[in-house]
């Protein structure tokens, strides 16, 4: 009798999911384990907390896996939020011309705002919002990561939406897909490959910010959120080199797992949404995806959402356009010109009002002289960034070309370069401080390389990607004509990799500005090294809790980045696209 009772649910499950095969043996525990860890960790994020309370944190490496989990959860949360933001903001911008005129410039400016700069401002807001809960500081940290990813992803999605092939869009219209169906059947799939790629790149930048945003000081209180970043901050305070070693090792493992379990499968999966397959592309592979695809039970489980939707959809009422809405649309179409003009004036007024308000806020606390000084600090940081990007290019372009021309080496080096780009370079800062102190080096010069430490890899792997796409026939003709080494570089290699180099250089450049906030002031126990620059200014004013000055620093830095982007990188990008794209 008990035999039957046990058997019945098993048989029912088999009927629903099919008999498990050997792939399931790995896949099921993997998925269930992940779900458990996620739900357990998430619950820890909402425990009660009051400002000033000390969160228990220990340097015992046994706690590191738990800290690493918390850090990862922040990354996941930020990614989910970024996706939501992308799907709404970018869609709105792409669909409405009026919204586009406002939203895209905003996005452009937001992209140049130094993320770590306004952490101290947002954290106050979030603590008030989630009063008495750890969710406040958690949300601030997640928000910092969010800001490092969302703009980039939204841009990618917006551009994809703008490029949906006309005939597909017409087919969708002709077969009368609703806007909801159109979004999920046409627009999202079309955008997916580049969105996933952008999300992966953004996430690799995110590790830097999660580490930097876990240990925050607010109004004189230090908040150490449980996580690898706080662990490092504590280790720095205690001058504990072994602990730093542990943290670095933990970070390696976490990034590796995050990449293998999340992004590799996603990239491989998004491959099927690629609109035109380039012959030169080698299909991405992911053991996790293969595993999930071949496991019978997992495949059945993956179908459950579709089953639910199928039951649900006929029940949902189909939306009919209400009469007022139709009238409104008619009115908007008829008064198009007038509305556009009104909208533009409104925007101009709003922007001017905001600028004046901001100017009054800052000048109430800061003298004009100091504002001038802040611009000079900006120039110092700008000089550092420019020199460093140039130096990094001199080193990594030849290396990248060498690697890219050897497919087998490239296959091994490319993931490594991507991994290094993801690795939060701020973990290595303490080592630099010790070196500078030990050898009595010039702080102004030797702190600078820290800014580019994490972002130089973008140059490397973009150049590798560019060089590996160099058409074989061009390389053959270069050899056939007997081009010398220098001619070969000048006539073939540099033009061919130029577009990818510009992409990499732009990313490295933006990243270096962001990093300056943590790289120009570095601590090791009681030792503090400071280089003159805008990053140091923001960091110091943040520590002092002087909000008008922080805001001033942020705005000046955003201005510098905006000006460089607009007058250097964008023209370069356009030039590269027009002259050197291999499309012909």
């Amino acid at each position: 009798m008990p035999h039957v009772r046990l058997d019945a649910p098993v048989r029912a499950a088999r009927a629903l999911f099919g008999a498990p095969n050997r792939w399931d043996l790995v896949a099921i525990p993997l998925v269930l384990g992940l779900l458990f860890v996620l739900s357990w960790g998430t619950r820890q994020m909402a425990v009660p907390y009051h400002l000033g309370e000390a969160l228990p944190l220990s340097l015992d490496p046994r706690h590191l896996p738990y800290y690493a989990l918390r850090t990862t959860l922040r990354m996941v949360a930020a990614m989910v939020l970024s996706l939501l933001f992308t799907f709404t903001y970018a869609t709105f911008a792409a669909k409405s011309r009026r919204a586009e005129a406002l939203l895209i410039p905003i996005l452009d400016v937001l992209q140049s705002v130094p993320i770590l700069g306004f952490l101290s401002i947002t954290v106050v807001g979030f603590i008030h919002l989630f009063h008495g809960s750890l969710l406040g500081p958690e949300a601030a940290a997640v928000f910092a990561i969010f800001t490092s990813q969302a703009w980039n992803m939204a841009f990618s999605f917006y551009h994809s939406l703008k490029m949906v092939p006309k005939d597909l869009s017409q087919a969708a219209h002709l077969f009368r897909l609703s806007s909801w169906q159109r979004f999920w059947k046409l627009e999202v799939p079309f955008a997916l490959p580049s969105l996933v790629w952008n999300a992966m790149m953004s996430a690799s930048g995110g590790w830097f910010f999660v580490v930097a945003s876990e240990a925050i000081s607010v109004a004189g209180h230090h908040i150490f959120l449980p996580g690898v970043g706080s662990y490092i901050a504590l280790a720095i305070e205690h001058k504990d080199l072994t602990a730093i070693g542990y943290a670095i090792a933990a970070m390696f493992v976490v990034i590796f797992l995050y990449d293998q379990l999340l992004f590799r499968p996603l990239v491989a999966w998004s491959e099927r949404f690629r609109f035109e397959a380039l012959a030169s592309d080698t299909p991405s592979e992911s053991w996790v995806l293969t595993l999930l695809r071949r496991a019978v039970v997992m495949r059945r489980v993956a179908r459950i959402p579709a089953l639910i939707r199928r039951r649900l959809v006929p029940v949902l009422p189909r939306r009919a356009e209400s009469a007022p809405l139709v009238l409104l649309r008619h009115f908007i179409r008829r008064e198009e010109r007038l509305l556009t003009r009104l909208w533009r004036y409104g925007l101009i007024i709003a922007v001017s009002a905001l600028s004046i308000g901001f100017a009054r806020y800052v000048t109430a606390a800061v003298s004009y002289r100091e504002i001038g000084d802040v611009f000079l600090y900006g120039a110092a940081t700008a000089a550092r960034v420019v020199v460093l990007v140039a130096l990094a290019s001199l080193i990594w372009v030849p290396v990248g070309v060498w690697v890219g021309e050897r497919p087998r080496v490239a296959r091994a080096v490319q993931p490594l370069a991507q991994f290094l780009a993801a690795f939060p370079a701020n973990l290595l800062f303490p080592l630099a401080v010790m070196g500078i102190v030990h050898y009595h080096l010039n702080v102004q010069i030797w702190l600078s390389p820290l800014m580019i430490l994490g972002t130089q890899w973008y140059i490397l792997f973009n150049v590798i990607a560019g060089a590996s796409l160099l058409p074989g026939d061009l390389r053959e003709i270069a050899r056939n004509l007997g081009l010398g080494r220098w001619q070969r570089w000048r006539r073939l290699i540099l033009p061919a990799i130029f577009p990818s180099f510009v992409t990499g250089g732009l990313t490295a450049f933006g990243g270096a500005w962001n990093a300056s906030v943590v790289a120009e002031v570095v601590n090791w126990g009681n030792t503090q090294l400071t280089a003159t620059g805008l990053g140091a200014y923001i960091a110091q004013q943040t520590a002092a809790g002087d909000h008008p000055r922080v805001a001033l620093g942020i705005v000046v830095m955003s201005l510098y980045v905006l000006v460089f982007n607009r007058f250097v990188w964008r023209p370069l990008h356009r030039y590269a696209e027009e002259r050197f794209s291999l499309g012909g």
Partner: protein
Amino acid sequence: MNESSPTPLLDLRGVGQSYPAAESGVRVKILEDINLAVHEGEIVAILGRSGCGKSTLLRIMCGLIEPSAGTVLYRGTPVTGPAAGISMVFQSFALFPWLTVLQNVTLGLEARGVEEGERNRRADEVIEMIGLSGYESAYPKELSGGMRQRVGFARALVVDPDVLLMDEAFSALDVPTAESLRADLLDLWSERLIPTQAIVMVSHSIEEALFLADRVLVFDSNPGRVKDEVRVTLKHPRDRESASFRALVERIYGIMTTAAAGSAGGAVHGGRVGLAYRLPEVSVAQVSGVLEQLDQSGDHGGAELSELAEEMHLDLDTLFAIVEALELLGLAHVAERRIRMTRVGKVFVDGDQQQRRRIFAEHLVRRVPLVAHILRVLDERPQRRAPEERFLRELEDRLSEQESERVLSVVIQWARYAELLDYDYDAGVLSMGSPDVQQGA
């Protein structure tokens, strides 16, 4: 019998389409005063050279584009958006690459909220009928071009359309594949296996149109309008080599080479064309290629257009574009389905590179006002250089931005060959060519 039905399936009344020119906002006409009634049981083909707005017309019929003049009635009611009974097959297939064959086919049903069991049942039927069985789970990229277009047909037919529109549905396929697909479609149609009541197709192949259609409408270009109509009463399957079929082919060539009264877009008869004339996209090599062909195998430098097209493997669009360029430059003359080299054309063919260049330059300046205009402007400037925007803006008074750029690029290409103009791509600057070939501009 067909004509006896009181309301036509599809009724176009005075349909016109135009867009505002980029700079001045002057309306540029694409289609003008199209009146067309499509009845039950007939296949109508629309034939015309590129630029006659035939694809636009098809999109107006199915409600994808709103016409700027006139109305489209489907079963007596105006079409204001995509209508349920009208379906289309695209030249580029327009399949969703991330959906399987089955998912692509059921797309239209899904949009209508047909529940899944029913959806798959209907899709299976159509897939079987169109010869796609066994490929249901394949992605489009796994299929050959012919199979992809079969998916396109299945997707269009599964929603049981009254009217099936085909936008050059076979032109992206190789000849044998297109042939078999056309034959299969015709079988389905004549055996009434599909619920479709009428087919409207756009084509740039005369033979294709005559092979399938009961009625062929020949369109004029710039702006597009109905020039003439040819009824085809031959029984299916039609034999392309039969005398009656060939006669119809020749008749259509005849219509296409007759200038309609007051038309700017018909054959260019020596007369001057305007500054913003939409020059055909033709290379100098194509021009001299056709002239050489006429010289070698033609009968006293003349030939039937149909023969020329066959010998040189030219489709209708390319053939007429080259013919237009030849007439425009005064190197050949077309009348009554025949093309004949002019005397200058003969001199051009016989000449060496230098002479050819000189003749081409001379005629370019004389007969293409835009070239003369550019040379005049450059000549007045001390540096003899001007940015391309200078001329683009002028063209945009009359044309769209894209069309202006296309026209200017044709002029640059021709004038470079003639060594009249130089163009700096990076700077976007036009300048005078080498002085020894400059003609009195």
